[in-house]
């Protein structure tokens, strides 16, 4: 029925369209024969082959080219006008349809030769076109509600005014009353308290807190007190920071993998941003300041140094290989994060749906192309006088010293090896170039064979090219043909233009009676030079490494270069960790890899990551001294050298500007950008924030796409309410409600009757079919049940187990996914964006690739497996049963009921019904029976199991994710290597579930064929026949995990943990 009507309408639309065309044709000034030609020949081609992608009327204008009318053809697209009057060959559209160049249109199927001829004729006529440009309707993207200024609507009148606690309720109730629907009654006290706790602090109330709340004689006051108490609890910031961190695509790593891994992919101080967010929320930093700090804390006058960490928003993103992808990511996080606008669509073209132009994007690009990051961020925390700090400093100094000395010793090792074989390497390399003849190759191979040099070493060290300061002239001796002697003489006398050659080389060559041109002779000469300088070169190593000098002695630089060759010379004065890292990349895969291993760069980062008392640094950005405007990239491609491009001044998005988007003046413009966003006049900023807060309190936002309020977002469920709250939020009503106060907004929402509704929908009468009228509850006729997110779920399990560590707020990230687990709150969990732990993925944790405010809520069996089988779940179960109130109850047989009640209160924060108590009791009885009937039969097996359990140990990863703590360097290179005591071996190294004599051991750093030869207590000895090595690993007592079969009580706890109620908030 519906379908039929739809298709009829579609026909009507087409019919109308034809009418308007006919009308346009009648009015346009065009010769009849031209019109006929257009209608018969051209219009069919356009509509069959072109307009699908190039019509404003149809809504798709690929490449900016609109073929709706002659005017738009003349205007052209990104690559220019579609045709030139009277110039058939020079017209772009003809080039495109003839597939002459790269631009081939239509892309899938070339037009027929006849069609191409017709098109050429038409262009030859001057492209007469009866279509009337003025009649073509293009939707006004700016008309969308979200781009209109926010004004405060009057609160609507309602019939049942008594129901309303505050204005929010008027808006909600008015809408329900218009459909003659009733709101749900108030939630019962236990359910409400649980909801408030999880909403504000992400933790359940304790049995005591429930008791106090339920029994309070003044329920209204009790409710207010709870909200105030929780808003003041530091746990509030920990809970709500996680929400913002989803949007801020927070991760502890760069996401860089593969060859670029030489650059440590872990951020040592990402957590300083996370902690800043927690602290800002806890101190109720006004939201406008919250924005400004994150974009431009370095520009805020009289700012505290702690606030510098706010700029982590810009710096904790993924580090893509292309700089422009990093800039794009930063623009994305800011525009989707603060403005709910998908501005990055405009990177390649004007936004298809929203009034955001490519120029808007490149105005912002200029801002983020004008910033840089310092080598090391400023110190913002840590007590310099503490023992821990000094311990950190000492360790760091040792590691750095080791890194620098390894750098030089490796460099020396390589250059020594090179110089010993300089002649042969030169000759082999020269004869092994890509275009060497087979005969030359043969000669090279013969030398290679004779000298027993490794081909790889030759390839890595021979830097043969005419511009190389050391080998360049030698290279030229062979390759120069015309006027060779004169050219070489010019070089030696410093008259030639071009590369600067090493003066020691020049001095040597000047002394030569003759400069040979045969490869072999040149190689011999090169070898001779190396030998001649050998005595002097040796002294240069000490010179180069003299850290007391602020700069290298210019007179000695040529010799130092020779000493360092084939690697670049780096005097100690210039060597820091950043330089070391860069050298590693420059040295190529082989040497870079060696340098990475020996310098211990990873250990330095590791120390910063795990240090408990070291300095805390902010991950800041700075403006470049000379900020630059960006050219507009056509289709997102940077203009090539010499290509003309439109320069866009650094500025804000036009449609959101009140000042006509005047160019930014101060430095990169970050502060001006921040103020433009954090403005009451900005139509999006407050709406986006209010909508998000609403979403976190109700399960769905008033607009259901929190990161996109543009044209694709549709209409809010309660537009007036959204605007009401948005204006109220930004206004200052005195000390109890300062402007932009997030905590005040929480309280307003939570005080409303709307928020306090029950999720129980049994109240609904028969007169109205509620579920049919509003199946998704967008009108808010009851509370939504919501699945706990991963963090709340894990934290609540730990809290039930009594092991949640809430001793401090903030600090380096911890391992929450592998044994031994940290018991800190989940917000402190380490997140490696390149390798997100399974557990987090299985529970829909936000993917830190991009800003993602709304989490998916997928249901997969792996979630169930985690609860059923993971050691984490088992630990929780065992600890719940060990809680005093349960132990007391369980100890006495008669108290079974009390035990059941205690368990329900801990797990579900409510008293079980009698029916539930019976169910639980029946379960227990059944499990006990089961136990006794098999007891005798399993006695022997148990004995055996106990033996196995004694040797069943679990080795663990001990760091914060990232690099695994693997066996130390060089293990297994010699015989009988013993691991130092306390060394941890990662799970990958020992697959410890089957840790027994004879078991194979595999993993990073362990050669294949390694097996366990003995297990004694906590010492495991490994051996490998092939490498004739053996080692012993001492496992710490803390790493040992015993697996003991659950008692019936534990089984009961786990079963309740499986229930939906445990995973949802009512």
């Amino acid at each position, binding site marked *: 029925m519906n379908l039929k009507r739809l298709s009829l309408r579609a026909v009507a639309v087409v019919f109308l369209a034809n009418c308007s065309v006919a009308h346009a044709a009648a009015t346009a000034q065009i010769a009849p024969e031209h019109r006929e030609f257009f209608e018969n020949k051209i219009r069919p081609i356009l509509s069959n082959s072109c307009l699908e992608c190039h019509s404003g009327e149809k809504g798709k204008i690929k490449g900016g080219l609109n073929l709706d009318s002659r005017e738009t053809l003349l205007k052209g697209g990104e690559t220019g006008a579609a045709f030139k009057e009277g110039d058939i060959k020079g017209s772009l559209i003809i080039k495109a349809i003839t597939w002459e160049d790269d631009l081939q249109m239509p892309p899938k199927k070339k037009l027929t030769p006849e069609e191409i001829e017709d098109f050429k004729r038409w262009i030859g006529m001057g492209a007469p076109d009866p279509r009337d440009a003025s009649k073509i309707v293009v939707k006004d993207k700016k008309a969308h509600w979200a781009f209109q200024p926010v004004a405060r609507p009057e609160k609507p009148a309602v019939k049942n005014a008594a129901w309303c606690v505050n204005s929010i309720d008027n808006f909600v109730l008015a809408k329900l009353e218009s459909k003659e629907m009733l709101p749900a009654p108030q939630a019962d006290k236990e359910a409400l308290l649980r909801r408030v706790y999880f909403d504000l602090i992400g933790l359940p109330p304790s049995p005591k807190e429930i008791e106090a709340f339920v029994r309070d004689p003044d329920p209204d006051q009790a409710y207010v007190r709870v909200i105030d108490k929780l808003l003041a609890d530091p746990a509030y910031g920990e809970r709500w920071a996680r929400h913002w961190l989803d949007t801020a695509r927070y991760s502890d790593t760069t996401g860089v993998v593969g060859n670029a891994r030489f650059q440590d992919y872990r951020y040592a101080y990402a957590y300083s941003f996370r902690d800043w967010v927690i602290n800002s929320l806890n101190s109720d930093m006004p939201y406008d300041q919250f924005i400004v700090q994150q974009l431009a804390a370095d520009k805020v006058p009289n700012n505290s140094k702690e606030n510098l960490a706010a700029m982590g928003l810009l710096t904790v993103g993924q580090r893509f290989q292309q700089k422009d992808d990093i800039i794009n990511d930063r623009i994305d996080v800011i525009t989707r994060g603060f403005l709910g606008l998908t501005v990055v669509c405009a990177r390649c073209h004007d936004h298809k749906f929203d009034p955001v132009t490519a120029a808007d994007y490149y105005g912002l690009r200029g801002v983020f192309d004008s910033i840089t990051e310092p080598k090391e961020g400023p110190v913002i925390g840590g007590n310099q006088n503490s023992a821990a700090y000094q311990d950190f400093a000492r360790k760091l100094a040792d590691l750095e010293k080791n890194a620098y000395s390894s750098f030089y010793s490796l460099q020396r090792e390589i250059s020594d090896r090179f110089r010993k074989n300089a002649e042969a390497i030169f000759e082999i390399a020269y004869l092994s170039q890509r275009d060497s003849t087979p005969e030359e190759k043969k000669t090279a191979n013969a030398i290679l064979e004779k000298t027993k040099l490794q081909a790889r070493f030759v390839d890595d060290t021979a830097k043969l090219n005419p511009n190389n300061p050391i080998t360049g002239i030698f290279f030229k001796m062979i390759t120069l043909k015309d006027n060779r002697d004169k050219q070489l003489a010019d070089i030696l006398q410093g008259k030639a233009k071009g590369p600067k050659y090493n003066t020691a080389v020049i001095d040597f060559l000047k002394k030569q009676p003759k400069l040979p041109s045969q490869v072999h002779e040149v190689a011999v000469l090169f070898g001779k030079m190396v030998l001649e300088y050998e005595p002097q070169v040796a002294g240069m190593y000490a010179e180069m490494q003299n850290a007391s000098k602020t700069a290298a002695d210019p007179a000695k630089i040529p010799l130092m270069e020779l000493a360092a060759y084939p690697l670049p010379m780096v005097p100690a004065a210039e060597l820091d960790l950043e330089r070391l890292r860069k050298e590693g990349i420059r040295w190529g895969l082989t040497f870079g890899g060696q340098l990475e291993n020996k310098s211990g760069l990873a250990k330095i980062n590791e120390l910063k990551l795990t240090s408990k008392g070291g300095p805390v640094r902010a991950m800041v950005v700075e403006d470049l001294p000379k900020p630059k405007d960006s050219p507009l990239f056509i289709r997102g491609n940077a203009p090539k050298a010499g290509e003309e491009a439109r320069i866009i001044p650094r500025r804000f998005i036009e449609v959101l500007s009140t000042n006509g988007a005047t160019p930014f003046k101060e430095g990169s413009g970050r502060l001006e950008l921040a103020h433009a966003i954090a403005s009451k006049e900005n139509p999006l900023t407050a709406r986006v924030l209010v909508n998000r807060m609403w979403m976190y309190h109700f399960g769905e936002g008033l607009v259901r796409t929190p990161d996109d309020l543009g044209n694709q977002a549709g209409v809010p469920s309660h537009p007036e309410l959204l605007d009401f709250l948005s204006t109220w939020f930004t206004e200052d009503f005195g000390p109890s409600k300062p402007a932009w106060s997030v905590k005040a907004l929480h309280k307003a929402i939570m005080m409303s009757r709307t928020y306090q509704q029950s999720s129980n929908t049994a109240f609904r009468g028969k007169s109205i079919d509620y579920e049919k009228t509003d199946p998704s509850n967008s009108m808010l006729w009851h509370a939504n049940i919501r699945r706990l997110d991963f963090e709340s779920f894990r934290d609540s399990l730990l809290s039930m187990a009594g092991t949640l560590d809430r001793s401090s707020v903030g600090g380096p990230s911890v391992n929450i996914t592998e044994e031994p687990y940290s018991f800190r709150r989940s917000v402190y969990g380490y997140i490696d964006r390149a390798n997100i732990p399974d557990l987090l993925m299985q529970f829909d944790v936000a993917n830190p690739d991009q800003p993602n405010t709304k989490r998916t809520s997928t249901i997969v069996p792996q979630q169930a497996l985690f609860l059923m*089988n993971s050691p984490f779940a088992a630990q929780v179960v065992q600890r719940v049963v060990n809680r005093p109130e349960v132990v007391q109850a369980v100890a006495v047989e008669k108290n079974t009921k009390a035990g059941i009640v205690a368990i329900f209160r801990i797990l579900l924060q409510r008293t079980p019904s009698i029916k539930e108590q019976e169910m639980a009791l029946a379960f227990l009885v059944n499990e006990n029976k089961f136990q006794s009937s098999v007891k005798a039969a399993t006695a022997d097996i148990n004995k055996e199991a106990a033996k196995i359990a004694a040797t069943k140990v679990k080795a663990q990863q001990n760091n914060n994710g990232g690099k695994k703590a693997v066996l130390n360097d060089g293990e297994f290179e010699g015989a009988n290597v013993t691991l130092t005591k306390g060394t941890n071996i990662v799970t990958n190294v020992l697959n410890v579930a089957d840790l027994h004599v004879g078991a*194979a051991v595999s993993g990073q750093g362990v050669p294949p064929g390694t097996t366990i030869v003995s297990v004694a207590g906590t010492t495991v000895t490994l051996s490998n026949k092939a490498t004739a090595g053996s080692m012993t690993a001492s496992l710490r007592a803390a790493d040992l995990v015993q697996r003991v079969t659950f008692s019936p009580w534990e089984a009961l706890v786990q079963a309740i943990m499986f229930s939906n*109620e445990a995973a949802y908030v009512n």
Partner: protein
Amino acid sequence: MDPNPNSTFNCSFGPDSSPLLHPGSMSGLSRRDFLVRNGIGVGGLSLAALFGLNPFDLNAAAAAPMGPLAPKAPHFPAKAKAIIQIFAGGAPSTVDTWDPKPELVNNDGKKIPGYEGNALGSPFKFEKKGKSGVEVSEIFPEIGKHIDDIAVIRSLFAEIPDHGIAAKMLMTGSTQLPKPSLGSWMVYGLGSVNQNMPGFITLGGDSTFRQCAFLPGIYQGCNVNYDPNASLATILANIRSEFSSLDRQRRQLDLAEQMNKMHAAQLQKDAQLEARIQAFEIAFKMQTEATDAFDVSKEPQAIRDKYELSSAGGMGMGGKNSTGTKLLVARRLIERGVRVVQVATGGWDTHADIGNTVKRAAQGIDGPAGALLQDLKDRGLLDSTLVMWGGEFGRTVTAGGGAGAPGRDHNGKAMVAWMAGGGVKGGQAYGATDEFGGRASENKMHVHDLHATILALMGFDHTKLIYNYNGRPFRLTDNFGNVAKELIA
């Protein structure tokens, strides 16, 4: 390019902010009901886009049973139901493997027009095989036996001679920001026919090869940390309990379900709650079924030998050739209804000494892949299983620089791949390169075209397999891709 052994069972759950179907327009079922039934989780418009359906057509929606991996019908009847994708990491040489070039051999050591350096003819002989007479290099004696089932693609290209970026292109159809992988798109479009197993499993490989990016997390490939020496328990995280017997777990689930019924009784009907109950039931069954799928010790010795597994090793998975073990596991998974299995292999980055390096790489795959094709055929699975082999780009036809025996450098202008089974028209060599083999010239096939063709074999119009994210529709083939119809039987 070596498989990353660091993680077990990596099912990642990415977020989604697709525009939602406007809730007011639906009737009868709740929004969640609708979405969960169709296995989308969220993103109703995408579902409609996916099937080219009227989004309000609940008949189609209701036809799909519960669960985010519920099997779904593609756009048109599919030739293939499952894919085994063998990734030849390192970028295989073309002229030594599947693109014989006598002219290159004739000019060995000489300059050739249009190329820098000197021609490096292949040291390997090619011979016509099968009824079709397609030429096969001597380094593939086993795979060569199946040439009549294989379509060799000689004209593939992507113009990206960088391992990491090109591999990303091959796996996700994009070199830029994170995009969903081929396998993720497939499971998003088709669901899985076995609810007790993940729909997309990778046996090694980079994490980008299995990423679902903006698709709901359920569509991310589950990486199984497949190590021939490891025990099953460490391969599949949480796959069995060390604390309870299966009997007891059954009784626990029964108690939980009783509680769930009481919990749901007073609430608005919510499909998520039901789905969660289902998830526990599936998990319960997975404990036995998944374990079984990975246990190749259950295979007869004859089969194990063909895949070049030795008899030694823990659970019988040890072997001289881990690729063989993985391909055998792949077959066992496909048999159980897993939609996409990706096997990462390597060894093809042959910058030096092709006579040995290329041969060695070929030996690593020839026996196992030959065994796989035969095995699938014997079981009647080859017709419905697309087996594909290929790397991230090709290699130069001239000798690379450097000391020692010559090798080949990176070349993005021509690469090779082959496909077999699953509706592929075998016994043909598709497309051609120029006379020396360094550039694709006839029937040029971009990686986007390869993707379009794979999707066509799986029953999809690649322009209609769409997901809306961040305010725009996305496809595996972006705005590109043409189906190579000649490859389809």
